[in-house]
């Protein structure tokens, strides 16, 4: 590795007396002393005064959004093929405040980056507003939000799992602390105190009086990296379904199956679609159910057709099967006069005098009622070979239970 000057010849772009320049020089010195070259280093910068650093570093650089640089740096670090590249993320106390979760997440995963926080206690670029890292004593001087304590980002990063977290408050320690942080394999964070001469103090002594003391914490951890794996095509897991049976459906048939969540409605509908495919038909199936699992309604729509199905809605269902009250309440508005309507006997109502009422729940149980009702309809209509439904369930892991439900429907 050749000896490099990590910094360009550009003059520091900060205000007169600003502490940021000292931190930038300390980062560069640490990198140089550890032997990192220009192409070994990637600077990830944030928004604000700390975001002016890119052109100072004669390295790779990426300049993103306010508060998001740690997350961007995580992506860069995980995306790199060469783990020997050094990703250094630089942000201010304002950036940490808006993007706190990104810091904690990088620490939690112990991603191999070094985060430099230039804490000048305020938002410099917008006129000196206090941040989430402004110290208590500083806020007392300002008579502003004195009852709100600051975040201790060093401790927060530590308890989140950072391999190394430190606060450095004395300029003469900056390069050494930075070296310690860079040498860590995993997530390291250093909060450096920085003087803002424009909006905080004219003198370093005044800053020293309000900042938190230095501290260092370590967690013995190995960094989390990306797990690459070889995967197989999703299509390999799909069953190829060929025509084995004939059916009397000559154009298109739409079925609505309505019941309760947990009642096997979606599974029964899938079995009907599969039976249709086994009968040489095109099939579509879609389900509707609440976002909760196992409570409320469960409705499925199946279309079986001789030709390819474009529109998967049902302008007019041909068959409507209802096996529970949840299902009845959900779809009763959709039922038209000329539908074939099959309803569980327990739901007998004057609203649908022409419906066929059958005892599915009593004969096949709550979980088997939907499939039993389909089997019942298949046999009664004669439109499909009941063997197609039996074959559809045969590869299911609960095929015996499903077959029992089908047989219960056939016996009615």
């Amino acid at each position, binding site marked *: 590795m050749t000896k490099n000057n990590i910094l360009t010849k550009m003059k520091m772009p900060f205000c007169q007396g600003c502490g940021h320049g000292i931190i930038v020089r300390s980062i560069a010195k640490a990198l140089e002393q550890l032997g990192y070259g*220009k*192409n070994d280093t*990637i600077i990830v910068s944030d928004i604000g005064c700390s975001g*002016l650093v*890119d*052109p100072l570093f004669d*390295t*790779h*650089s*990426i*300049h*993103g*959004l306010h508060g*998001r640089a740690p*997350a*961007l740096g*995580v*992506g*860069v670090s*995980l*995306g*790199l*093929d*060469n783990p020997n*590249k050094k990703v250094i993320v630089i942000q201010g106390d304002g950036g940490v405040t808006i993007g706190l*979760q*990104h810091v904690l*997440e990088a620490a939690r995963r112990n991603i191999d980056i070094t985060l430099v926080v230039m804490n000048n206690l305020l938002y410099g670029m917008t006129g000196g507003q206090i941040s989430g890292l402004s110290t208590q004593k500083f806020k007392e001087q300002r008579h502003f939000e004195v009852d709100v304590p600051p975040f201790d980002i060093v401790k927060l990063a530590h308890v989140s799992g950072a391999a190394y977290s430190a606060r450095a408050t004395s300029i003469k320690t900056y390069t050494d602390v930075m070296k310690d942080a860079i040498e860590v394999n995993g997530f390291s964070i250093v909060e450096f105190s920085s003087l803002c001469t424009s909006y905080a103090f004219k003198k370093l002594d005044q800053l020293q009086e309000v900042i938190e003391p230095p501290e260092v914490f370590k967690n013995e951890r190995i960094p989390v990296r*990306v*797990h*690459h*794996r*070889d*995967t197989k*095509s*999703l*299509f390999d897991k*799909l*069953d*190829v*379904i*060929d025509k084995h049976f004939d059916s009397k459906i000559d154009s298109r048939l739409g079925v609505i199956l309505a019941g309760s969540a947990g009642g096997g409605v979606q599974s029964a509908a*899938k079995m009907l*679609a599969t039976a249709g*495919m086994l009968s040489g*038909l*095109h*099939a*579509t*199936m*879609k*389900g*509707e159910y609440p*976002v909760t699992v196992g409570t409320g309604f469960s409705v499925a729509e199946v279309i079986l057709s001789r030709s390819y*199905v*474009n*529109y*998967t*809605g049902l*302008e007019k269902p041909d068959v409507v099967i209802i096996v529970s009250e949840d299902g009845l309440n959900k779809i009763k508005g959709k039922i038209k006069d000329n539908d074939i309507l099959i309803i569980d006997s327990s739901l007998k109502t004057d609203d649908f005098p022409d419906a066929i009422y059958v005892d599915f729940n009593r004969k096949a149980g709550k979980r088997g009622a939907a499939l039993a009702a389909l089997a019942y309809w298949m046999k009664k209509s004669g439109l499909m070979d009941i063997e197609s439904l039996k074959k559809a369930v045969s590869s299911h892991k609960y095929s015996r239970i499903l077959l029992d439900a089908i047989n219960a429907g056939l016996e009615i």
Partner: protein
Amino acid sequence: MVYTDASMIITEACVKAGSDVFIGYPITPSNRFYQYGTQRFPAFLAGTDEITVVQWMAGFSAAGKFPVTATAFPGLALMAEGLNMAYAMELPMLLILTQRLGPSTGSATTGAQGDLMFLNGLISGRYPIPVFSHSDFEDAWEMTYESIKTAMKFRTPVVLLTSKELVMTNKSFDLNKLKEIKPVEKYSTDVIEPYEPYKTGDEMVPAYISLGDEKYQVRINASTHNNAGLIKKNDPESMANTRRLKEKFEKRIDEFTYFDHDKEEGASKLIVTYGISADASKDAIGRLREEGEKVSLLIAKTLLPVPGAILDIINSYDEVIFVEENISGIYKEILFGVNNSPKVKSVNKIGNLISPSEIIKAVRS
């Protein structure tokens, strides 16, 4: 035949096309992309929110890896600033956007076509971000491939716009209909020496070199920047670089213009649609033609930026009927504004698929 859904087809197409990583945050109705993504992508990461997801994606992309995510409007809204960043940085990535009924959280499990206007204004200054749409399964496969190719070619985030009913409806399907997809080469225009990160030639797209490169110093920047990739306000080079973000697409739009024009000789009426409403429109056209009506059908697949070729077709008809599952016709408004011309009609609906009968009624009215 197999029994599958478009979420699976799109996921598989992403991986076949060479995508490296899926970075997800769970949201309905993009759930199946997340589920299939965990099974199929060479790498998978669970982001902590959509803001994080885009940042991680940008980092991967800057390091030369192709990232994919899938979300719905609430996630997209959180991603807006990050997508502007990735756009300005010129980082290729794919965002699958599964539309659902809004506003706000709306109905997570009800489909819609409500997000095109947001995408049209997503990039501050209305710089165009490529938005592609699919309807049937073959389309889902091909438009995923074209989306990724476009992202690579133009170094840009690309949106594949879909919707709940398109990706969560199961259908019987013959996988042999899918054309072979070869991994998209990590497309890069040649470096023009001496290298500068944002210097471009005739293609108007800078060479795609990863951070950490051994030969070239790479500088990537979201703020207004010069060819060197450094912040530079208001100088001619930086302004030209900013204008180029729009011009690169305008100049080369023919390279990513996709649509199906089912033209009926002698027809003066045209149904214009995209995405989920294309299915009902195809059925409506079939029925109308059976009854002797002369109507053509245009299914747009390159939605944004709007290709001139699509406008030329639309302008060649006397009457145009837009079919979209939203409250007032978003694609129509993008093309014709709010001051409707009498030649423009609109079939709209929320909460349910538009049916073929509703389209037929509008065509005949």
